[in-house]
């Protein structure tokens, strides 16, 4: 589903990734482990389009995305839940969730995928443009109304599903996001990401700053989302123990390079991983 090849990324003159390659098969949970500053978050930022890679290729469902912007990538079906959650802390819980669905429901051409336009020749585009201009108004209006209804239902279905996973968010619907507890904020960040109905979810340190109990709960939900909805997950985590428990496959990142790659079972048994990341 996601294929990263020889990815090099830098912040100005400081190179953070020296040729990272990894693969995330559809339906799996893949985790990226590593110490602080190993380049875990940078990898996610490059994949989701927040950071433009220096070189290398990124393919999402067979389509190259390394030259697309973050805004375009999210509408392809990939949600990035960033480090430190990055909520809209002065907006309410519901408004945060509405924004999560923005890429699907709000854009004037939300239904039309960019691919739609690419597959037409220049002449075809012109024809279509003229046709649309000619038949324009009324048809567009009818479609807008029809789409609006459909989007509304879609939105409500997505919202119900998020509230099923995180009932506490339904209770706190009109509370300001910044006043939620740490665990609730992480749930909101995940809920907001899921509102876009992604097929691939990039999760950056969901356990950050949370109590062990809460972390466990969050990880259970991650596993449920993957199992019941078939959402593929790329998980970056410091808590290697927990991550390897739910992941199928893992990569270990060291100073911008992949040091190890194996199934999570083998990784857990590997001495190097036990010593450095599992604290045994």
């Amino acid at each position, binding site marked *: 589903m996601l294929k990263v090849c020889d990815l090099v990324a830098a912040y100005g003159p400081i190179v953070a990734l020296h040729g990272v390659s990894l693969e995330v098969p559809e339906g799996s949970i893949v985790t990226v482990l590593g110490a602080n500053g190993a380049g875990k978050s940078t990898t996610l930022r490059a994949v*989701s*389009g*927040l950071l433009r890679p220096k070189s290398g290729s990124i393919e999402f469902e067979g389509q190259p995305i390394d030259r697309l*912007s*973050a*805004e375009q990538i*999210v*509408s392809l079906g990939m*949600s*990035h839940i*960033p480090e430190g959650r*990055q*909520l*809209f*802390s*002065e*907006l309410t819980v519901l*408004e945060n969730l*509405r*924004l*999560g669905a*923005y*890429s699907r*429901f*709000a*854009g004037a051409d939300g239904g039309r995928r960019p691919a739609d336009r690419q597959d037409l020749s220049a002449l075809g585009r012109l024809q279509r443009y003229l046709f649309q201009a000619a038949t324009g108004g009324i048809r567009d209006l009818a479609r807008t109304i029809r789409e609006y209804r459909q989007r509304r239902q879609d939105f409500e279905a997505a919202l119900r599903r998020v509230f099923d996973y995180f009932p506490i968010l339904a209770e706190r619907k009109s509370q300001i996001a910044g006043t939620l507890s740490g665990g609730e904020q992480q749930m909101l960040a995940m809920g*907001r990401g899921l509102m*876009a109905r992604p097929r691939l979810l990039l999760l950056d340190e969901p356990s950050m700053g949370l109590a062990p109990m809460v972390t466990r709960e969050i990880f259970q939900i991650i596993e449920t989302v993957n199992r019941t909805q078939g959402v593929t997950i790329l998980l970056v985590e410091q808590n290697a123990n927990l991550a390897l428990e739910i992941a199928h496959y893992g990569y270990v990142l060291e100073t911008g390079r992949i040091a190890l790659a194996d199934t999570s079972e083998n990784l857990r048994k590997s001495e190097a991983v036990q010593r450095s990341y599992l604290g045994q």
Partner: protein
Amino acid sequence: MAEFWQQVVTGIATGSVYGLLALAMVLIYRSTSVINFAQGEMAMFTTFVAWSVLQWGEYWVMFPLVLLMAAGFGAFIERVIIRPVEGAPILNIIIVTLGMFAILNNVATWRWGGIPKGFPAPPEIEVTGVKFMGEGALDIGPTVVSYHDLTILVFAVAIMIGLYLFFQYTPTGLAMRATAQNPIASRLMGIRVGRMLTVGWALSATVGAVAGLLIAPLILLQPPMMMGVLLYAFAAAVLGGLDSPVGAVVGGLIIGISENLVGTYTPKEWLGPDMKLTVTLLIIVVVLLIRPTGLFGRRALRRV
């Protein structure tokens, strides 16, 4: 007592105009942390354009036309002038807005001349026998309100309600609020941040244009006409809290009313009408000493 109410009502009307222009500034400040010092000149410029349009057209044809042009003008300024300095230190962007101030002022003088012109108030419209706007005044018991003051008030209230609904209930409005708070997270939601800023400038220029069209009949149309208004509007925005639209409006009303009352009721020997600006600004300084974020603001002010 009649005179007191008279002053209050007039204050509410001019205060609404200050509030509108302050609102225009707040719209830009919230999303970019830039104080647009050219806001008043932009409004002056669109009012001059309106004057030119009025030479061959009806008022109510000109009105929507000029608002559309103002929106385009605002969007153009953001795209062409502000976008290239985006990300530069705030001070640079402020200098750019000051430059626009000078340019717009000079272009207006060059094109339309410095001689003050009269500008018409919105003319009367008749809806099923009831007349709105136009000449005359309305008797509301303790005092009379001129139709133009009433018009200003109606427009101001309509714009505020409209903006509130827009920001609260439409996806674009919500996206604009999100962009103001957290541009990076907004990008991850699929919001095109640049486009939201353009829309913000367009909206702001439109609101400013309405303020210009409404204040021009009260003061004469001339290139420096918005200087005083801008000063009051800026004070209103600061008083209300630079990031709060409600604050801008309330600030505008407070300043409009207190300006009028100070002009009328303080002794002429040592304060009086000449000192009303000073006294008003003094009130603001006191408020800001007590509440540095303004009455409704949340973010602390930045020194510029």
